[in-house]
């Protein structure tokens, strides 16, 4: 950042006569900017709802179907909430998928019927492992100054290996009933046409907690500050290294929750689980408006991003479209979302 450039552009501002303290920004434009992705989501739902009408009833809108979509999006959604924090700080996390597998297997071992241990123990073990793995990611990034891409790539590859090592390559099954309930159970069962699956509840809780952390606490502010301008944050007295470690640890914590939900749902810890989950999570965040440059993103957006992918998959399923098309479409949506994001920020800057 050369002094010449700052002063020259400063002269431009002065030359323009400092017309008004705030640049004009049409309220329409800011409305779209804030809620655009949500409107797109609603539009998609409306479209699919209409297209799947059969005998006057929309299959898409049936309660069972909607709940299905939510349940299927839960695991990725939980991971995505955590990775949102990381991306806002300007980093990235490629290890989520492998950690889901590893943590899932470890948790499953503790949850085996034959050991008779309480399910809460399996959960706590998972969380501890998740926080540890995340903290390692964070420490490598912050203290060893390894680019997050590389640090988490290393974690991704080695964690996968550890998972296979511990399990001998075989699934860990025969888990206790109470543990499986976490992934398969439902509550508020008011008859056949209303119930809330536990995974959805957990997703909701995670989203709310993450939203609170990001928007209402100092932790959240520092996360944005780091992504916006790390040097400025440092000069203001923010402990940059420590904060990075916390952010990655939090993401690890959420990944562990996702691992438990997944393992409980499929009734087994599988060392080969979670392939590509990290990318799906990142995609969800990006579609939801989180900028890979850092400094920008909200949990609400990430949740919508997750659901957009979920709804799209579901809609194409209902329409009988091959899952290969779903994949292609997902890729296009990701590219589209980033193009929109780039245009938005190019246009806004002076």
């Amino acid at each position, binding site marked *: *950042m*050369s*002094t*010449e450039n*700052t*002063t*020259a*552009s*400063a*002269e*431009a*501002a*002065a*030359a*323009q*006569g*400092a*017309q*008004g*303290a*705030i*640049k004009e*920004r049409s309220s329409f434009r800011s409305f779209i900017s804030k809620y655009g992705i949500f409107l797109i989501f609603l539009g998609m739902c409306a479209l699919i709802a209409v297209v799947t009408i059969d005998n006057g009833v929309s299959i898409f809108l049936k309660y069972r179907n909607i709940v299905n979509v939510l349940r299927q999006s839960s695991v990725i959604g939980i991971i995505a909430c955590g990775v949102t924090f990381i991306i806002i700080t300007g980093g990235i996390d490629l290890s989520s998928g492998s950690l889901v597998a590893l943590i899932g297997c470890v948790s499953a071992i503790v949850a085996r019927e034959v050991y008779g241990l309480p399910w809460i123990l399996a959960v706590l073990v998972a969380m501890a492992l998740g926080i540890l793995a995340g903290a390692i990611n964070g420490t490598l990034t912050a203290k060893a100054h390894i680019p997050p891409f590389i640090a988490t790539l290393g974690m991704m590859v080695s964690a996968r290996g550890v998972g296979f090592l511990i399990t001998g390559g075989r699934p860990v099954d025969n888990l206790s009933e109470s543990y499986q309930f976490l992934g398969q159970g439902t509550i508020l069962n008011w008859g056949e046409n209303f119930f809330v699956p536990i995974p959805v509840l957990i997703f909701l809780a995670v989203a709310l907690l993450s939203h609170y952390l990001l928007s*209402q*606490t*100092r*932790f*959240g*502010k*520092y996360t*944005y*500050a780091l992504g*916006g*301008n790390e*040097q*400025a*944050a*440092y*000069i*203001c*007295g*923010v402990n940059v290294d420590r904060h990075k470690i916390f952010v990655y640890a939090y993401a690890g914590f959420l990944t562990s929750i996702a691992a438990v939900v997944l393992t409980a749902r499929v009734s087994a810890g599988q060392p080969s689980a979670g392939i590509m989950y990290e990318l799906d999570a990142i995609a969800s965040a990006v579609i939801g408006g989180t900028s890979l440059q850092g*400094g*920008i993103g909200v949990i609400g957006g990430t949740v919508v991003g997750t659901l957009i992918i979920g709804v799209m998959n579901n809609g194409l399923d209902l329409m009988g479209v091959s899952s290969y098309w779903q994949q292609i479409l997902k890729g296009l949506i990701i590219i589209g979302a980033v193009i929109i994001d780039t245009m938005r920020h190019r246009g*806004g*800057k*002076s």
Partner: protein
Amino acid sequence: MAEEFLLSMEHIRKQFPGVLALDDVSLQVRPGTVHALMGENGAGKSTLMKVLLGIYVPDEGVIRFDGTEHEKMDIHSSLTHGISMIHQELTPILHMTVAENIFLGREPVRGRTGWVNHKELYQKTQELFDSLSINIDPKAKMVDLSIASMQMVEIATAISYNSKLIIMDEPTSAITEKEVAHLFRMINDVRDKGVAVIYITHKMDEVFEISDEVTVLRDGRFVGTKPASEMTKNKLISMMVGRELTNFFPKLDVPITDVKLEVKNISLEGKFKNVSFEVRKGEILGFAGLMGSGRTEVIESVFGIYPPDSGEILVDGKAAKIGQPMDAIKYGMGLLTEDRKLSGLFLPLSVRDNMVYSNIDKYKNRFGLNYKLMEEECERQRQALSVKTPSLAQIVVNLSGGNQQKVLIARWLLTEPDILFLDEPTRGIDVGAKSEIHKLMSSLAKMGKAIVMVSSEMPEVLGMSDRIVVMCEGEKAGELTREQATQERILQLAAGEAVTV
């Protein structure tokens, strides 16, 4: 108990590789005063302040602040100890709000979860703005503010720390006269409260209007401190500039012939306005001016990096259409950029690669590249310029600054240019290499090339130029011949003063 000085920096020494930035510098500031810190570019002002804040650790010297003695300061505790700073370069967090930026690191929180009390955050900001009569919406995002407003926010932030000492580094670089008056009111207010202000600026009018005392630094040394009342503009200038000009500039007597390059009334929105100059074959045209005066922008514009909005460029009397650097190179121009590490060198590549990449077409043959020819030409350049390197394959990042610069000069020489733009050609280079580069410039002029040299080093400008164009705030302030040029005249033009010749 009242100590005379709030701050006393004594015999500070700071050495960087190749450069002694601060040589026995002392600064003493009384509470409740505005103390101006002046000096040319590179005099050491910013370095001294960075030492004070704790960004740099001094090699020698003592800092006494508010009764306590420190051997070095610490960036985190300097804020709590009562020193805050308005930085020269604005570094806001663009996508957060004004209030969030101001209170970053000290947000009002409730409870142990660190829950931010947003209501209080915005209230406090509004109160701060009210007390300073600032009219900006605390909820606005920084990215939506004009640069002038961003600077006002920066000023408000520094004042909000209720520090005993506020350092203001070029606080008026981006704001208009009305806001400057406002700033001075704010400064008067805090001064009445006993706060000390260190005010760094190039604008002499401001110094006389607002400061109580003035300290001048020159070439990393302390020149003197005087009450503002005893200062005059001329005295100030001569303190800033008065050095002996040792004449070790190897300027040859070179025949200056036809006009090679003519630039007529070029303007670029926001960067410079109505600039005209000409350069003849065999001539060295110096471009002087303060930082931010637009010199780099002008030559980069002529070279096609961002072409001017209006105006004409003529090469050999004919109109030249330059839309991108490629065009400029075709017209026989070459450009040595201001920051060789940023926009000049390919650091991880070899000396040879760095030399040939501007002109790769020359070495194409039917099978690919003619490496033999490349090696020959590069070797010839290496010898001609005395580039100290174990071999042409040496990675360029390992070379010293002077030799890196020579590699870049070699690169441009290989394109056989007629016009050479050199932006700060000897910046950050030791004396020996400097002299070699100057010799080089002279011999290039002798070959009939037209040379434009942007430089912030007065002795270099005076020693090497046949004529000097002085820029000030984006416009051409004046032109001096070699005979007419003196340091004082150049500085006066650069500061926007009229000069009698």
